[in-house]
């Protein structure tokens, strides 16, 4: 691949780079909006992470030491919502904003003003979420949301006005996600440089294209579900109230019709990032480009059809649980193929282990583990025991921390030199990696045992028989939490200065984004590059 020149476009000649707060508030530049997304996600990561520290501190010992039970339930709820909607999704959106135009040789996102709008809707949602958390502390503020992120009625109907703010938060998040998704789809389908066919497109763009379609499909039913909840709460409807002829289980279906594909929304962009990192540090092209794309499409499609495996215990018919079991187990095929392709890319490569590659290897191993416990959970007989126990907590943290969060960390280290024009401190990066791996495994591996021994999830207090593993888990969590202070330090340090990388940054890097200077100028590819 080669490009002609990086000619400054007309626009930048006319206007130059906007300065001051206007640059950010009114931004229509994909790089700036990408940065905004990343900053917000970092803030939310620390907020959601701090909540998990409180949760693990409370669970360090049996007995209730620190938190009122409802505040504990509230933290459990918001920890999930903040990290899913506030940290992982915006971080993936930020990286998508930064990288997609540069990867496909486009000057910007297709709909720059909508890009701005979808970002600020996210900020509005974040504010609304914080209001939802604060309002119970004010006089007359009602009770806290104590339902878990699943918001199941009738419990969610009992909650005070805090729940209403949460419902509006979901609406705003939905608008934000749908706008961002439309933008990404339009950009990818219309703005690729001449010669870049879909099947030549970098995998990260593919992963985001599929993610964006998923989001557009799943956010509306969820928004509908919470709106019905709002009506049940205030306007006397009985969508979910059995006494009025409604059905509490209907909400569960609406929630998980959104909630399960949401898992793949979190997962796919990170898997896309791995498809860039592993070839770069193995110095060898991605093994099975076509089958990786196919596997991602299949994961997205099948992910839409298996939602009720979160509800095996509600009393579905034998036919229904059989279908959902088999369909869920079959997802292991595309996921397995994807992981296989990544391992095959490493095989007979010439690997070096900079921080992004370390994360990639860690992800492959830990995500495989999370995937395998996922197959165990997919079997209905097994799940009848595992369901809502700590085994599930352990499983989905392996799947989501390894599969989603660490992929974003890998992407951060991979692209930070490109974004900032400074190399990060490799030694600190490696220390961070090992702290994360040790902390994560120490936290979540013992939780499998807790679940099998009978500890239900979302309990504020537990019997003494669960003490030892909870202590280990909490210690692991504190290591995991502390490592993030280092992460923040590394990022701040890199933004402020550091060795200047070349355009390519990494020896084995390939792709249009690596032909641009580090950091790239405000406007790039105003003249489309030629793709060989």
């Amino acid at each position: 691949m080669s490009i002609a020149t990086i000619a400054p476009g007309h626009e930048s000649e006319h206007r130059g780079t906007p300065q001051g707060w206007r640059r950010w508030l009114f931004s229509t530049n994909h790089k700036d909006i990408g940065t905004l997304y990343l900053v917000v996600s970092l803030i939310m990561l620390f907020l959601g992470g701090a909540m998990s520290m409180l949760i693990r501190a409370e669970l360090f010992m049996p007995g209730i030491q620190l938190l009122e039970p409802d505040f504990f339930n509230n933290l459990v709820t918001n920890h999930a919502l903040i990290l899913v909607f506030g940290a992982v999704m915006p971080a993936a959106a930020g990286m998508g904003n930064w990288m997609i135009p540069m990867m496909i040789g486009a000057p910007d996102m297709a709909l720059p003003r909508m890009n701005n709008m979808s970002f600020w809707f996210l900020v509005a949602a974040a504010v609304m979420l914080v209001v939802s958390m604060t309002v119970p502390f004010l006089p007359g503020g009602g009770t806290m949301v104590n339902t878990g992120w699943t918001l199941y009625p009738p419990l969610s109907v009992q909650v005070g006005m805090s729940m209403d703010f949460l419902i509006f938060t979901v609406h705003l998040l939905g608008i934000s996600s749908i706008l961002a998704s439309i933008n990404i789809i339009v950009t990818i389908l219309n703005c690729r440089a001449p010669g870049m066919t879909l099947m030549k497109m970098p995998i990260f763009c593919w992963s985001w294209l599929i993610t964006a379609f998923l989001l557009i499909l799943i956010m509306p039913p969820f928004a509908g579900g919470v709106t019905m909840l709002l009506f049940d709460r205030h306007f006397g409807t009985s969508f979910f109230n059995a006494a009025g002829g409604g059905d509490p289980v209907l909400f569960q279906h609406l929630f998980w019709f959104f909630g399960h594909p949401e898992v793949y929304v979190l997962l796919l962009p990170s898997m896309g990032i791995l498809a860039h990192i592993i070839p770069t540090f193995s110095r060898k092209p991605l093994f099975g480009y076509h089958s990786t794309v196919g596997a991602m499409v299949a994961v997205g499609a099948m992910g839409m059809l298996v939602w009720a495996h979160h509800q095996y215990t509600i009393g579905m018919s034998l036919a229904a649980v059989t279908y959902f079991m088999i369909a869920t187990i079959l997802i292991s095929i595309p996921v397995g193929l994807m992981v296989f392709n990544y391992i095959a890319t490493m095989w007979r490569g010439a690997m070096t282990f900079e921080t992004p590659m370390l994360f990639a290897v860690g992800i492959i191993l830990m995500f495989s583990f999370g995937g395998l416990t996922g197959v165990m959970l997919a079997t209905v007989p097994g799940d009848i025991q595992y369901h809502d126990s700590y085994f599930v907590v352990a499983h989905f943290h392996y799947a989501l921390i390894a599969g989603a969060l660490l992929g974003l960390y890998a992407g951060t280290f991979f692209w930070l030199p490109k974004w900032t024009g400074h190399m990060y401190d490799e030694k600190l990066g490696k220390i961070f990696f090992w702290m994360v791996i040790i902390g994560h495994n120490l936290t979540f591996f013992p939780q499998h045992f807790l679940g099998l021994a009978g500890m239900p999830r979302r309990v504020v207090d537990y019997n003494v028989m669960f003490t030892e593993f909870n202590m280990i888990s909490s210690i692991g969590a504190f290591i995991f939490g502390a490592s993030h202070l280092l992460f923040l330090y590394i990022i701040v340090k890199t933004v402020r200065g550091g060795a200047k990388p070349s355009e390519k940054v990494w020896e084995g890097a390939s792709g249009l984004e690596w032909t641009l200077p580090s950091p790239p100028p405000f406007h790039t590819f105003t003249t489309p590059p030629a793709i060989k």
Partner: protein
Amino acid sequence: MMLLGLAGFTQAEYGINFPEPVTPSARDIYHIHMLTMTIAAVLLVIVFGIVSYSLYTHRKSRGYVPDQNMHKGWFGRWSWVVIPVLVLGVDMTIAGSAEKVLERLWLVPKDKDMMEVKVTGHQWWWEYEYLDQEVKVESRFVPQEKAGDLYLLEVDNPLVLPTNTKIRFLHTSADVNHSFWVPQLGFKKDAIAGYITETWAVIDKDKEGVYRGQCAELCGTWHARMPIVVQAVSPEKFTAWVAEQKTRIAAAAAEASSGKVWSKDDLMEKGRNLYNKNCAACHQLDGKGLPPAFPPLVAGAAFSAAENMSKPLEERGFLKDGKIVLGPVPKHVDIVLNGIPGTTMQAWKQLDNLEIAAIVTYERNAFNNNTGDVVQFADIEKARGANAAAAAR
């Protein structure tokens, strides 16, 4: 690797695997669990092995030259078929064996003579109704002082079940979703208001004993305090237990309906026990509640809450200028009997007249309320009569 090591354990000291199953279906589940876990462990070892070998061998520092054409060979061209077929084989093994167990587990036998137990989840206790024996048991967690090391796994009244008997469980909820889970019986079923779902079990003949579990679905503030204790006894002992329960119920009913006028001290004594059992989870032993969700019962205590809670309290005369006051006795009885719709305060109709009289008397005189009010059996009977009349209209 660590998982393989686990496969040998059944119930180690700290409990790292399922406790020993005591029903045939729990044993079936256990076997599926061990099968899938073993497959998972083997696959994990394979993945770790391949990756470790590659990490060691295929590195630049060892001078390894990357094979740029690997994806173009036959393996590169056909791996997208080979890998899915292999994975499909593993999937079929797992799904096939799970499917067989699933049918036995899922289809509840339709025998006419099956014993039936209705399990109702409440915030935050379990109600067990033996439909054939016409016995009802209320089961609540026991505070730490009494439960000791069994805290959160111990209840006042266990679910007594006969061994070697086919039992059908009917699950439902009186309020929010709960989930009935006793690992050793081998199933978990959600309790959902408006639904009645069924499960079944036969406890092995030689497995008399106590089996413990907990509510598994987040059900609000005291989700952690909904233990389930199953006491499995021989059918003979079970029959004896049922007879004992019936005597107890008859005695209580006779006492409650005797129309006797009770002294304040007796009512206070009775009321304290009932309050601590039924009300203290929310309103606390000292009556101070957990604002804003659960109002205090102490006159003069400050309380502010959202409108759905504060307004009904004001209307009934129990909240004035942000302070709790003791409203009129009939309204007090009404709140306990019928609850406050739209809030967490549930109706306590299921208690008998004497019990409600005792609770109201206790609440009006304990916590330094000292109103001197004494509420009798007859007052409650009257209140219920008014209810019935209202319902008839």
